[in-house]
């Protein structure tokens, strides 16, 4: 009946037309801006300048238009558009509707483009003499980025994907589109990936992409410096921008880590996943480049390296885009986007952008001024240069290993085309986390030591005795802190290393972290006399030192609480390398776990989420409960894939976090199975095993008859673990008129019933029957990890970002002074 059909939504074509119009307009205007600004910079021509400005502003408003239309489609639930249908649904809370915007490739490209447009507008508003040069680069970047949103086919290539495709365009084959009013069948979208339904995912992508976009500003400065042969004057105005990019990109990366910690169940904030590496690498290089820029301002050295690093950093941003969006990472990442038919376009983009900066750099390398003399070993610039090298080394190591699948694809492609026998089967590390940790541990030690000592040197040259004395004091303080922390967290002094023992390198990193803190605290107090506006760099270093300590202790000393303590023999020659860190919890049955007694209480559901309420009771040495709390890890069912994704719950203490997630729940199909019934023939003193424990048969006794019923009882003690004091249960055997009855007796707190089912008096033998219920939600598998001192990571990062913010202000002030004094250096 017609009336019962849901009201059909109308198909509003206006959004798509408007959106695609804005895309075309933004694309053309960006191209025009690039050309006009380039000519304005070259010919110092006012009218080209005006044209460029108008074109760029038109471009900016068009980008705003694209963003606005896409938001309107998502907010208005216009599911006739594929993007809204694919990435959102009506039941999402407002805050997550924002995440829908950047869940897809197109939306995240758009977010990136949006930030470029905003930063470009700020550069225009600043009215500096750099406007023409910078904006010509920005115009070009916007043209390339927008090409990914064009969605047109030309020259046998697919150029980009527009976010404004209609559902009926994407899924032409579906019979539903035979109806004119097909929207009545499509009442809701397929929803947002459950993993992204987290508040950190609302804020992490915009911040990260702002960081990526901000890295384009120093890149544009350096590029135009090469292009126009004006090698020096760019550094002073570019420095606050470079620091801003370091701050925002760093914050974005860390927010991603926080998201992973709070909503992914791998246990930790960093897993060396290619997607994470891809954002860390540009940050490392940019931090190195920023240090070299600072060094150049003070001493006029390292200009070539500064240009190289700043441009390389931005290219790594683009390389990351390629790696994570082309599908080339294949088997090594779970997080990356799948190939959306843009692989060739992305390769072109990558190679083109590489040539764009590498060719002018090589051609102009000799022309960039460099001092003929060598810096003194006791100069700050020497140590800053070494520090930048360490960061570059770290970045290159990470990006090389992350790119192995891409390298294999590339060499395979070259081999097929040229017949050369290049290696195309380079293996990736079997355990990437352990591999990166093993290498980057030493990098972090180097970084910590350099950060601690760097500021103690003066520019140009310093007295070794003075540096030595100050470093000695810092080292002494760091040594005390290291010993204290190492002892408190129970870090072993020696670790096994192949054959025999070796000193634990973690102590070195712990020392390096504390040394960075101590060295910089000393510098702020003594040399700078606590003057905050000058302390940005030191504060940032100290914060990073604290982070290193936090990363090390929370990572190296994390402790799996949920170790399998039942001591089940798994047989088949398993050695202890295999993970044994999940435990089974029956509802209402307390299990000891570390210093806690853990009980799975019940589950409850809300929307697509099922919450599992797990009670923790912390016991002191005497077994007294000193603290009780309930954690509620949950499982969220993804609308699209129907996959369950586990979300952890964490109890935060000042010195540690207790992190818990559900790693399995009963299969719903098992609900229909009956109880598990097992008969055991026993003698007194025998043990009876059941799924979650065992019982010891103690003795049997005849009980006084009740009426004409003869009764016998069998005393058993039921244990669920070796530490369990045991519970007594006495099932009865009743004989009435020659018939045997054995009513099962429930065991308190254990999902078990026991029956005394037979007796063989002549043999002294008894039969015990165990009955174990199998119902749907009566158990969960839980994993629990303690992360000690993880707060140091978050606290250190806040200090780090505060320090960078102070540095930005300081460099702005210095820049204004330089501009006012009219000097060019």
């Amino acid at each position, binding site marked *: 009946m017609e009336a019962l059909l849901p009201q059909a939504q109308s198909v509003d074509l206006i959004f798509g037309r408007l959106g695609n119009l804005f895309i075309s307009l933004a694309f053309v205007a960006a191209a025009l801006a690039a050309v006009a600004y380039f000519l304005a910079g070259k010919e110092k021509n006012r009218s080209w300048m005006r044209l460029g400005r108008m074109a760029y502003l038109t471009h900016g408003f068009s980008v705003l238009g694209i963003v606005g239309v896409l938001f309107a489609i998502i907010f208005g639930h216009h599911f006739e558009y594929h993007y809204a249908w694919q990435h959102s649904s009506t039941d999402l809370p407002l805050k997550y509707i924002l995440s829908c915007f950047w869940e897809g490739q197109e939306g995240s490209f758009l977010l990136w483009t949006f930030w470029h447009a905003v930063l470009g507008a700020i550069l225009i508003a600043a009215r500096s003499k750099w406007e023409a040069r910078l904006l010509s680069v920005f115009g070009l970047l916007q043209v390339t980025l927008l090409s990914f949103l064009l969605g047109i086919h030309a020259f046998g290539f697919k150029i980009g994907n527009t976010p404004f495709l209609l559902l009926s365009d994407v899924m032409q084959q579906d019979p*539903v589109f035979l109806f004119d009013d097909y929207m009545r*069948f*499509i009442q809701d979208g397929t929803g947002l990936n459950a993993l992204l339904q987290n508040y950190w995912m609302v804020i992490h992508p915009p911040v990260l992409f702002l960081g990526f976009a901000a890295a384009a500003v120093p890149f544009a400065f350096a590029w135009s410096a090469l292009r126009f042969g004006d090698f020096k004057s760019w550094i002073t105005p570019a420095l606050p921008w470079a620091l801003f990019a370091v701050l925002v990109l760093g914050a974005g990366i860390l927010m991603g880590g926080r998201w992973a910690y709070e909503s992914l169940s791998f246990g930790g904030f960093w897993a060396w996943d290619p997607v994470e590496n891809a954002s860390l690498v540009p940050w490392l290089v940019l931090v190195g480049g920023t240090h070299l820029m600072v060094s150049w301002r003070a001493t006029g050295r390292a200009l070539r390296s500064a240009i190289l690093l700043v441009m390389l950093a931005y290219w790594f941003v683009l390389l990351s885009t390629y790696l994570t969006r082309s599908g080339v990472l294949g088997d090594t990442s779970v997080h990356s986007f799948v190939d959306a038919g843009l692989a060739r376009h992305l390769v072109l983009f990558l190679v083109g952008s590489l040539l764009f900066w590498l060719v002018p750099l090589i051609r102009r390398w000799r022309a960039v001024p460099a001092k003929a003399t060598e810096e003194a070993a006791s100069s700050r610039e020497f140590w800053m240069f070494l520090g930048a090298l360490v960061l570059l*080394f770290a970045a290159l190591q990470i990006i090389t290993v992350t790119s192995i699948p891409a390298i294999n694809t590339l060499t395979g492609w070259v081999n097929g085309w040229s017949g050369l026998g290049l290696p195309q089967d380079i293996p990736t590390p079997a355990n990437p986390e352990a591999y990166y940790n093993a*290498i980057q541990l030493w990098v972090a030690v180097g970084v910590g030591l350099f950060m601690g000592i760097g500021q103690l040197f003066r520019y140009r040259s310093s007295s070794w005795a003075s540096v030595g004395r100050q470093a000695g004091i810092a080292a002494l303080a760091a040594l005390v802190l290291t010993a204290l922390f190492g002892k408190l967290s129970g870090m072993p002094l020696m670790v096994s290393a192949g054959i025999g023992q070796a000193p634990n390198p973690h102590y070195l990193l712990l020392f390096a972290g504390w040394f960075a803190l101590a060295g910089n605290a000393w510098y702020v107090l003594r040399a700078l006399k606590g003057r905050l506006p000058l302390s940005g760099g030191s504060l940032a270093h100290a914060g990073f030192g604290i982070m290193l300590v936090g990363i090390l202790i929370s990572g190296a000393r994390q402790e799996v609480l949920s170790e399998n303590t039942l001591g089940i023999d798994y047989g088949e020659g398993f050695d202890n390398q*295999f993970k044994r860190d999940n435990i089974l919890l029956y509802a209402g049955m307390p299990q000891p776990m570390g210093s806690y007694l853990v009980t799975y209480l019940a589950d409850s559901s809300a929307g697509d989420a099922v919450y599992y309420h797990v009670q923790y009771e912390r016991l002191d040495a005497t077994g007294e409960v000193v603290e009780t709390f309930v954690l509620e890890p949950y499982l969220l069912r993804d609308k699209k894939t129907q*996959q369950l994704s586990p979300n952890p719950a964490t109890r935060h203490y000042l010195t540690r976090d207790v992190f818990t997630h559900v*790693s399995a729940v009963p299969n719903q199909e098992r609900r229909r199975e009956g109880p598990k019934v097992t008969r055991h023939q026993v003698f007194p003193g025998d043990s009876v095993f059941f799924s979650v424990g065992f019982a010891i048969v103690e003795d049997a006794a005849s009980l006084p008859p009740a009426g004409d019923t003869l009764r016998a009882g069998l005393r058993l003690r039921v244990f669920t673990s070796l530490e369990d004091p045991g519970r007594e249960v006495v099932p009865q055997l009743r004989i009435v008129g020659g018939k045997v009855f054995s009513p099962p007796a429930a065991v308190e707190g254990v999902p078990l019933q026991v029956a005394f089912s037979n007796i063989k008096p002549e043999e002294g033998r008894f039969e015990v029957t165990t009955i174990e219920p199998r119902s749907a939600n009566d*158990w969960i598998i839980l994993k629990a990890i303690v992360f000690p001192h993880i707060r140091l990571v978050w606290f250190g990062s806040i200090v780090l970002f505060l320090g960078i913010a102070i540095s930005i202000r300081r460099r702005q002030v210095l820049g204004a002074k330089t501009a006012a004094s009219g000097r060019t250096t």
Partner: protein
Amino acid sequence: MKKTHIALLFFIAAGFVALASMLGRSAKHGGFADALEADGRPVRVSGVLAPGKPVEYDPEVDANSFRFWMVDRKGVESEVVCFDDMPYDFEKSEEVVLTGEMREGVFYATDLLVKCPSKYVEDELATTTAQAG
């Protein structure tokens, strides 16, 4: 030679050491047949769940492992015991990538990566079917 050049050489050498140590610890990509010959070295095998064979996971017996049958890309089938958490709805996975070793005809996987029906690409239209009275 400048000091910075010496430092540069040092880092290049360190880079080679890092790469070499990776090759030492790396898992070779291959099939079950390669795992048989790998002699204890870890091998990374990609494949799909063997159709019609069950995935056995009984946490009441062992919460920390599960077993299944997989067909690698060359069509070789093997029994697999995995010591990782069993991903939710593992049976629905499109492709499985295992890292581990072969022992007595059973592949013991210490690491498991599951490719699920993609989060980002839809090829099926789940329409709200209206209940026509």
